[in-house]
Each structure stands twice: as structure tokens, then as C-alpha cells.
């Protein structure tokens, strides 16, 4: 029969030799192999103490961005929700009223903005779809939770700290 690939190895059907039938020699060889592993370097990363760095293109938990004056950039256009292949994003828009100019950048803003982290596949299409640079994927991931409700992240969870009034928190969140 013609071989399908060049990696075919014929099954060895030779009856076992006398030395093999004694088991002992082969067991000894095996034990030498395991013994040599005592001196091998362990590849373990001691997780909570040592963390492996993420790659620069890592796509983690989302953040909702503010502009340099601390105003929310999101205008609740819904493009991220449309782009989302997992349908993890929902939002409700509201109109900015008089006196809220320092809170929201444009006349329309997201009154409610929720991402279900159990649905999210962290593809980053929301980030690409956003015309206002309002949503970004950060370099952390969603922590574990005891119930499903806890995985639905609302605006308080997603918004970054205000660069003017909460500068220290923002620096902490950025990791410096």
C-alpha cells in the first residue's frame, strides 16, 4: 500500500527479546531517564509572585476612554455593538443637558454601557469600529466571579479615572 505521508513508521512486530522479557533492564533504563529529570530546570512560573509579561498586542479587558479634560468620549453611536461578533455590548443613549459639558464631550452620551465579559471574545473589533477613540482593550483580563451577574461590566467598571480630578488613580491604573 502506498504511504500517504513521508512520516509513516512501520509497526515493529518482532517478538520481544530475552533481555526485554526480563523487564528489569528496560525498567532500569526508564528509571535513569526519570532520575535525570531531578537535575532539570523547572519551567514553572510561580504565578502570583511572578507574572509572565503579556505581548504588546495583548487584548484584555475593555476601558472607556476620557479626553484630556476628563470628559467621556463615547457618544453612544452603537458602532461597537454592531461590530461585536459575540453581541456582548449593549448601551442606552441619552442627550446631554445644560451644565453637563464638562462630563460629556458631545451632545449625546451613553447613559448605560454594558459589556458581558462571558460573551466577549476579546477580538478587539469594537476598538477598531469606534470613531471616537472611546473604547480600548487594556492589558489585564477579567477576574473570576461567583455569579454571572458579576461579569456584566457597567460604566463604573469600564471608565478610566478622570485625568484631572483622579490623576493618581489613573497613574496607578496605567501601572506606573
Amino acid at each position, binding site marked *: 500500500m502506498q504511504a500517504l505521508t513521508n512520516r509513516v513508521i512501520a509497526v515493529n512486530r518482532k517478538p520481544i527479546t530475552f533481555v526485554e522479557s526480563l523487564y528489569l533492564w528496560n*525498567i532500569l533504563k526508564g528509571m535513569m531517564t*526519570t*532520575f535525570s*529529570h531531578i537535575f*532539570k*530546570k*523547572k519551567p514553572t512560573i*510561580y504565578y502570583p509572585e511572578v507574572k509572565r509579561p503579556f505581548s504588546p498586542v495583548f487584548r484584555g479587558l475593555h476601558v472607556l476612554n476620557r479626553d484630556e479634560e476628563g470628559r467621556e468620549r463615547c457618544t453612544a453611536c452603537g458602532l461597537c455593538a454592531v461590530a461585536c461578533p459575540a453581541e456582548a455590548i449593549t448601551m442606552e443613549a441619552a442627550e446631554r443637558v445644560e451644565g453637563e459639558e464638562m462630563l460629556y464631550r458631545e451632545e449625546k452620551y451613553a447613559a448605560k454601557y454594558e459589556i458581558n465579559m462571558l460573551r466577549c471574545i476579546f477580538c478587539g473589533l469594537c476598538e477598531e469600529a469606534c470613531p471616537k477613540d472611546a473604547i480600548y482593550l487594556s492589558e489585564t483580563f477579567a477576574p473570576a466571579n461567583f455569579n454571572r451577574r458579576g461579569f456584566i461590566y457597567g460604566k463604573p467598571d469600564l471608565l478610566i479615572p478622570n485625568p484631572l480630578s483622579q490623576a493618581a488613580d489613573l497613574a496607578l491604573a496605567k501601572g506606573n
Partner: protein
Amino acid sequence: MTLLSIDTALVIEKLILIAVIIFASLGIALYTTFAERKVAAILQDRPGPNRAGPFGLLQPFADGLKLIAKEEIIPSGANKWLFILGPGLAMTAALMTCAVIPWGDKVELFGRTIALQVADINIGFLYIFGVVSLGVYGVMIGGWASNNKFSLLAALRGASQAISYELAMGLSMIALLMMTGTLQLGEIVKQQTGPGHHWNVIYQPLGFLIFLVCAFAECNRTPFDLPEAENELNFGYHQEYSSMKLGFYLFSEYINMFISSAVMATLFFGGYDLPFFNPANHTPNFAATIGIITLMAKVVMFIFFFMWVRWTVPRFRYDQLMNLGWKSMIPLALVNMLVTAVVILMRH
């Protein structure tokens, strides 16, 4: 009436010795479970348990606490009394063996000479064999009383395995017995100590090999761990057990390992004898301490060997196990016995 006079001090002395040995065996078994996990980890390039205490040293206590805190379940179809008796019997049989092992020579305390052996009975070997055979009842009763087909199958396997390998073990012992001329363990160790005497393993290498393999089978250790073959019998004979009853079963396995290591060290590796160390040149207490340390070092080496084999060799298939036991081990032991007999006859 002198016949009935009891030396109270002797009774107290023996009771203290029993308590010390039992607690030491339990403590060593406790840390053997830890060592097992550590050795497994190191052989597999992992760090192993390292969270509880420094280097994970409190891990066995955490494991024990967890087992005690678990719910105690007795299945409704189980035979309640036998179900409880099983682990107790396994544990008792495991602990009883340590009575005849000489842990060291004599120490002098409070003006008394105390032998570091609970009972130097003249049928030491036979006693060990008897008690080891009792250990099978723990497995059998536990498996039977669980009312679970997997447990029953595992128990059947365990019993047939133990019987098959006890035969070869007994035959290898007969060869040793012909050499030593005594069944008394204290006497066997004395024969191996001192200048001009050698450890029995030099005279009986094949006998030792057979004994070693059979000890693996008796302790239900890999490659002979068929009674607790996880991937074919779920968990084996202790499948229905929970909480500390399961703990007793798991624990008795480690105590068995410790005791059989001690027996092997005693029978074949000179017990508490340290080569090139003459106890007569030192005070008895110092010599006894060195002796205990020597025996423990030998035991630890055997225990490591047990683990090393466990994490190297895969489990035998049932028919391979039986073939090895009946068609290789027993004939080999018989040949060993014959050769020993011939050599002894020629030298006379």
C-alpha cells in the same frame, strides 16, 4: 508465685516504646504523602506543593484537615459494620508489623537497659507474614462492604495479587531462613553486624530482588497498583469511602510502604548496622542513636525508591501481573532456594 510477678517497669517501658513507634510511624507516613507529591513533582519537572508553610511543609496537615472536614458518607446499600471495619483493619494490620522490627540496639536510660524493639519474638518473620496477609482483609472487606461493582472487582484483584505474590515472597524468605537459621529479626540483624559479617543482600541478591518486587505488590504500589487502578476501576476498593475512612486507607498504604522498607532494611541491609562503625567503641546510647539514624536513612532510601519506581513504570496489565507472579517469580524463588540449599550443603 514468682511466676506471676510482673515487672511493672518493663510494661511501662514497652508501652512507651509502642506509643513512640506508632506515633513515629504515623508521622513518617504523614510526611511520606508529602514526599510522594514532591518526588512526583521533581521527577516531572514541577515544583510540587509549596503553598502551605515554608516549602509546603504543612501540606500533609492541610490534607488531613481537609479529609477530616469532609462529609462522612456510608452508602445505603453498604454493609455498615464491615464498611467501618475495613479501613480500621487496614490501618491496624499496617501498624502491627512494626512490633517486631528492631529499630536500634539497646539504650541505657534511668539505669535500665532498654531494647529498641517491642517484641523480639522467635517467629519474627512468620509474624510479619501473618500480619501482612491480614492487610488483605482490609482491602477485601472494604471492597465487599461498599456494594459497588468497581470496589468488588478491585478487592478481588487485590486479594488474588496479594496471594500470588505472598507465595514468591515466602519462598525467597525460606532461602534467607536457611542461611540465617533463625526467624528472630533481632538475631538476623546481629548476624549482619560486626567485622567479618556482611549484609544479607550480598549473599541473597536474587532473593532480595524477589522480595523487593513482592513488597511492591504487597503494598499495592505501581507497577502493581491494580486494586486502585484509577483509570479502569474509578478509584478501586475505596471508591465509596469518604472523609477519614478514606484517609485511613490511603494512610495505611504509606505506613505499609514505611514498614516494608524497614523490613527490607532489616532483612537484607543490616538493619541498624552502619558499615565501618563499631558500636563497641562508643557508649551504648550514642551507638543506639547512630543505629536508629542509620536504619531511618536506609528506610528513607527505600521509600524514595518506591516513589521513583512509581513515577517511572506504568501499571502492569492483570494477565501480565499473574504471569510475572506465577511463571517468573515463583520459579525464580524456587531456584534461588535450591541454589542456596546446595551451597549450604557443600559448605558443611
